[in-house]
């Protein structure tokens, strides 16, 4: 970091003007966060005072009867995000290892950007493809197979007719989270000093032993943080999930039943609210989403410690 000269106090009038403009812009960024929290809580207030914390575990969402509880939505969000993480974390870390340790440089230069490109596909397109192409495929081929093999577990019940389910939503989220975990982990693995790796190799370690003994232990906290950032993306995704999850605010034992997440529910019902309490309840849900999202980001930052994982997300 080129250092000391940057902190110089502004002297001339031009310096003061530029400093003021920049400080104003920076202030605006800070104020926006506070404004978001205020607006959400302010608009959610009728629902918060009506339902209190019971909102978190009551599972009935009946706009016509003015009864609202976010339990089923929290369940849907947890199930889809966890499924996405369980699949995307190992896969993403494996891709990162391939890109940083195994692939020859020319392959690296092609495969790396291709995986990152997956993150650039807008959620509306992934969701649209998911509902038209992917869900029927899952319903016809994947769900029956899983039901036949693992049917004794209630999670893998008989497939429904459409393929729109929490399971499909989890798979679609996997595709959206994977490039985040893969590219962030790859950047982390590349920071492991060459000396450490070569030292291990000189001791006779195989490539896997270098990965297990040197690369993963030195970057573990960063990889966990990268996974948490992926989780944050999965939790808040509205459009893709509302298209493929089937939009049913109920808890079912089977993953193959339709469901809804916090974000997807807001996406489907906000346009046509039944009453004002309905709107306030959706703001309450958004408030929960905000708290969970901020907590995930903060936790990722704390765990990452010396790694500045989030910087790579802006690319």
């Amino acid at each position, binding site marked *: 970091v080129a250092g000391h000269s940057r902190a110089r106090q502004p002297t001339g009038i031009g*310096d003061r003007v530029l400093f003021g403009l920049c400080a104003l812009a920076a202030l605006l960024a800070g104020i926006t966060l506070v404004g978001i929290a205020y607006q959400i809580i302010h608009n959610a207030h009728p629902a918060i005072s009506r339902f209190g914390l019971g909102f978190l575990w009551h599972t009935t969402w009946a706009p016509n009867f003015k009864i609202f509880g976010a339990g089923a939505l929290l369940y849907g969000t947890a199930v889809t995000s966890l499924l996405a993480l369980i699949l995307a974390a190992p896969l993403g870390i494996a891709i990162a290892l391939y890109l940083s340790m195994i692939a020859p440089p020319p392959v690296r230069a092609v495969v790396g950007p291709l995986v990152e490109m997956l993150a650039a596909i807008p959620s509306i397109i992934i969701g649209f493809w998911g509902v038209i192409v992917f869900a029927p495929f899952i319903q016809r081929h994947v769900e029956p197979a899983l039901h036949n093999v693992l049917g004794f577990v209630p999670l893998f019940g008989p497939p429904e007719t459409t393929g729109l389910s929490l399971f499909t939503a989890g798979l679609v989220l996997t595709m959206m989270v994977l490039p985040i975990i893969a590219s962030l982990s790859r950047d982390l693995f590349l920071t492991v000093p060459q000396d450490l790796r070569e030292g291990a190799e000189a001791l006779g370690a195989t490539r896997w032993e270098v990965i297990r003994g040197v690369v993963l232990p030195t970057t573990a906290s960063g990889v966990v943080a990268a996974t948490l950032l992926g989780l944050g993306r999965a939790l808040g995704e509205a459009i893709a999930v509302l298209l493929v999850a089937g939009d049913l605010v109920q808890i079912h034992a089977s993953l193959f039943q339709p469901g809804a997440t916090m974000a997807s529910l807001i996406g489907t019902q906000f346009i046509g609210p039944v009453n004002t309490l309905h709107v306030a309840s959706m703001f309450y849900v958004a408030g929960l989403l905000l708290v969970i999202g901020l907590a995930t980001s903060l936790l990722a930052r704390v765990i990452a410690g010396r790694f500045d994982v989030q910087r790579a997300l802006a690319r």
Partner: protein
Amino acid sequence: MTSVSEAPVADALPDWSGPLTPSGNLRRRAAVNRLVEVAAIAAAAIGVAMLVIVVTSVVSHGAKALSFSFLTTNTVGVLGGGIANDLLGTAVVVGLAAVIAVPIGILTGLYVSEMTGPGSRTAGALKLALDLMQGLPTIVVGLFIYGLIVIAQHKESGFAGAVALSIVMLPLVARSTQEVLLLVPGSLREAADALGVDRWRAIRGVILPAAMGGIVTGSILAIARAAGETAPLLICNSIFNPNVTQLNPFGHGVPTIPMYILGVFNNATGPESLTGAWGAAFVLLAVILLANIGARLMLARSRARMGG
């Protein structure tokens, strides 16, 4: 300031007595190693396959819809006609969002990188705020602007949608500006200081031009992200006449490509009636992927030039 490339690792040295101690026979170790390598290659293949499957699916379905008239005529009803007005609408809304977010983002990046000392509390807090902002679910951003602008004006509008999109873009622009400013050699600043040049002249004449490539790239990536963003538009800009060209986002809902795709999907009567949505998805995806590829090429070139 800590960053990935400069991270000290001495405090995280692995336990050398552990897995590095040769144990068992060499053949077994080689087999395990081979297994892991094959698994990693398979994972990479799966990752690339996901991209290829989605893109080919969109291209093969979308190419059928694509024609000159599809791109140059307005939408008729919900399902018929072309997407000219939706394309223009997306350009207007995203353009307005960029006009708001890019200058503020660049100034914020300048502030973090040029106007605070190393280890400054303000800079740390600001970076935290930007990271948190970037991690916000976009639908929550949509609800914020709904509460702030739509409720106040009693009306959804392209402007409200654009402000919401600008909040999505701001941290991206600020972060990439700050990152590229880190690559500008300190000697440039010191040379300007030694000549007695005011800081603002140095920033305008030396530092910003040196960083321009990276800033433009970051802005393009942020614009590409906003172009496909749907959730904030669904909340703040979902009421519009889908059949007219609406170039005035103030006080009017503006039809956009993402909302067109969603509208077609919600009103479709069968697979044939989805053709328009596939076509629009193709156009949107093509624009976004080309912008990404272009931005990456530019970034690589400007990094190489700056020796970063």
